[in-house]
């Protein structure tokens, strides 16, 4: 009977094209509006590394005077999202976690060997070898550098697929050299395309931006006195002038992540951090006991407010709009179905039970929902295209429809239409055939 009901639904929809178009438009516009915001919201709030998001932890140490920070209206805990060089190196040296990495964003001026290409700047992440397995960076050629390379401050780099395409035309560049800031660096690996959204491992620097184009050992970057291209914050004392002064200041510019595979190891690391902070106070570095925090990826994203309140409100508003569209569609569907009460009466007289009428009308609502979903998808694509045009490239990265988004749109549309059709359908099933036939 399903195909029969679908056939009847199509005939019914053709009978009143204007009413049908209005119903489909009501659902389509609602779906378009809600899916546009939902797509962006999902991209903003999605788990960028679901397999490991509970095992990767960002470290915070409150090296700034909490009174001062509160007075400035910042984090009420007085915690900065980044660490100093001193603390980063101390944590790396302690090597408590199975994997850990300090890192910061910096950059090189790259002079291509091809004279036809002009020198250009390359945003680079200075980090440790653990970065790659910790964040599951896939490799196209070669491999990450080794821990020995970190210790030896090696002149080596890992390229992103995009940079490798640009400089080496996509060929295997492992073993080749690149002239960076006038110095030769050897390529040890090329990643596959990898750019988690949001860029959870460094939410202070362009959180929805692309991953860096190149990676260099942090030990080498420090030797080369490579400045931070990202967020660099100081409070009060900015340290002595010069590179050494910067390294020994209380200015924060390093992200620090550890991989802790179990709850026990996380608890041990928390305890270690607490003891580390306590030692700092006893050593006289601070007048206060620095707070410490260890947050996994989801907690870190919440804390850093990756999804702003306004984004949440926007989603709420768009779904309220969808609800209004649903009510409109329900009204139109009610008018359409009750306009066919006589036909329903005839069908009942000819042997249709209430379930048969209910099924027929609900399938009609489903067909409308499907059509509304397709229209909604087109409008969503248009809406996202509009966002890409109007907003920055950074936001534009969030505006792509995935298979999951399409599935959600279709499911949402069908659900909306079925909900909108539920009451009219119930009313249709209650049609008293005797009354309908008497009034003919």
């Amino acid at each position: 009977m399903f195909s029969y009901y679908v056939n009847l639904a199509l005939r019914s929809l053709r009978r009143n094209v204007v009413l049908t178009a209005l119903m489909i438009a009501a659902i389509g516009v609602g779906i378009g509006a809600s899916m546009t915001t939902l797509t962006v919201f999902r991209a903003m709030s999605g788990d960028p590394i679901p397999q490991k998001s509970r095992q990767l932890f960002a470290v915070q140490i409150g090296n700034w005077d909490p009174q001062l920070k509160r007075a400035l209206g910042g984090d009420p805990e007085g915690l900065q999202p980044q660490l100093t060089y001193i603390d980063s190196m101390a944590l790396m040296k302690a090597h408590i976690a199975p994997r850990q990495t300090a890192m910061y964003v910096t950059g090189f001026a790259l002079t291509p060997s091809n004279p036809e290409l002009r020198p250009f700047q390359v945003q680079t992440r200075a980090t440790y070898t653990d970065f790659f397995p910790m964040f599951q960076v896939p490799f196209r050629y070669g491999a990450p550098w080794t821990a020995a390379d970190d210790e030896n401050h090696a002149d080596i780099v890992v390229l992103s697929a995009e940079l490798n395409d640009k400089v080496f035309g996509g060929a295997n560049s492992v073993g080749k050299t690149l002239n960076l800031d006038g110095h030769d660096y050897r390529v040890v690996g090329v990643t596959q395309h990898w750019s988690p959204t949001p860029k959870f491992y460094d939410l202070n620097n362009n959180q929805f931006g692309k991953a860096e184009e190149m990676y260099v050992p942090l030990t080498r970057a420090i030797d080369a006195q490579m400045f931070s291209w990202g967020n660099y914050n100081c409070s009060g004392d900015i340290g002595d002038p010069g590179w050494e002064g910067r390294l020994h200041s209380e200015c924060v510019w390093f992200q620090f992540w550890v991989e802790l595979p179990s709850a026990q190891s996380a608890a041990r690391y928390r305890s270690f951090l607490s003891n580390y902070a306590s030692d700092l106070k006893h050593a006289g570095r601070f007048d206060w006991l620095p707070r410490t925090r260890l947050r996994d990826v989801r907690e870190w994203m919440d804390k850093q407010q990756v999804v702003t309140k306004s984004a949440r409100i926007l989603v709420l508003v768009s779904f309220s709009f969808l609800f209004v569209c649903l009510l409109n569609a329900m009204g139109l569907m009610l008018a359409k179905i009750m306009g066919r009460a006589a036909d329903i009466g005839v069908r009942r007289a000819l042997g249709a039970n209430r379930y048969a009428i209910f099924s027929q009308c609900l399938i009609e609502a489903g067909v409308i929902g499907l059509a509304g979903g397709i229209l909604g998808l087109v409008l969503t694509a248009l809406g996202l295209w509009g966002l890409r045009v109007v907003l920055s490239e950074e936001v534009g990265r969030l505006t792509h429809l995935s298979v999951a988004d399409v599935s959600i749109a279709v499911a949402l549309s069908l659900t909306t239409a079925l909900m909108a059709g539920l009451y009219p359908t119930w009313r249709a099933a209650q049609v008293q055939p005797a009354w309908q036939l008497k009034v003919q």
Partner: protein
Amino acid sequence: MLKMTHLSKAYRTEVVETYALRDFSIHVKEGEFVAVTGPSGSGKTTFLTIAGLLEEFTGGEYQLDGANVRGLNDNQRSRLRNEKIGFIFQAFNLIADLNVQDNIDVPLRYRGFNGAERRRRIQDALSRVGLSARARHYPAELSGGQQQRVAIARALAGSPRLLLADEPTGNLDTQMARGVLDLLEELHRDGATIVMVTHDPELALRAQREVHIVDGQVVDLAAQPRAMTTAALGA
């Protein structure tokens, strides 16, 4: 075939209770052609809708083809209606969206027949009412008489035990009405049980027996000569 005993149907509001049928008894035997007559508001159509299981009754008993229908749920009533009863309405009640064969197909779909069986029955029914050539026409393309023939074909297609006709010629001109009546008589001769509601005494004469309803109750005309009864009613 159809037996109602002391049946009543009351419509209740908060302040008043109105009886459309009261102490209503009728027995239609298999193969009979019965005309149910009466003035407007006498309860003819109420009788027909109850007989057709389109409406429930308030009191009494109703047996259809030997089965007591009191207390049946919607599913059971729908199935019984589909299997045992064929309806012919005054306004034809064809579904405008569907062509002739799809209209006839409606009760067969609910019956659960497979495609081949439905096609066979549709062809048989259409050929019986002489409209085989109009299978793909839509109701709006047919004359009133042809539409009523389609309605009769639809009623016949499921091989019902009982045909219920409500003023089957009420919307037709004389010539078309004659054709429809001839068809009903032919069906009766072939063994169909027909109950026809009409307010037209001349039409009632074509039936084998006449049951007259006044104020929701059957007036027994069986004992009186047919011509006299008709004349008396006409007066």
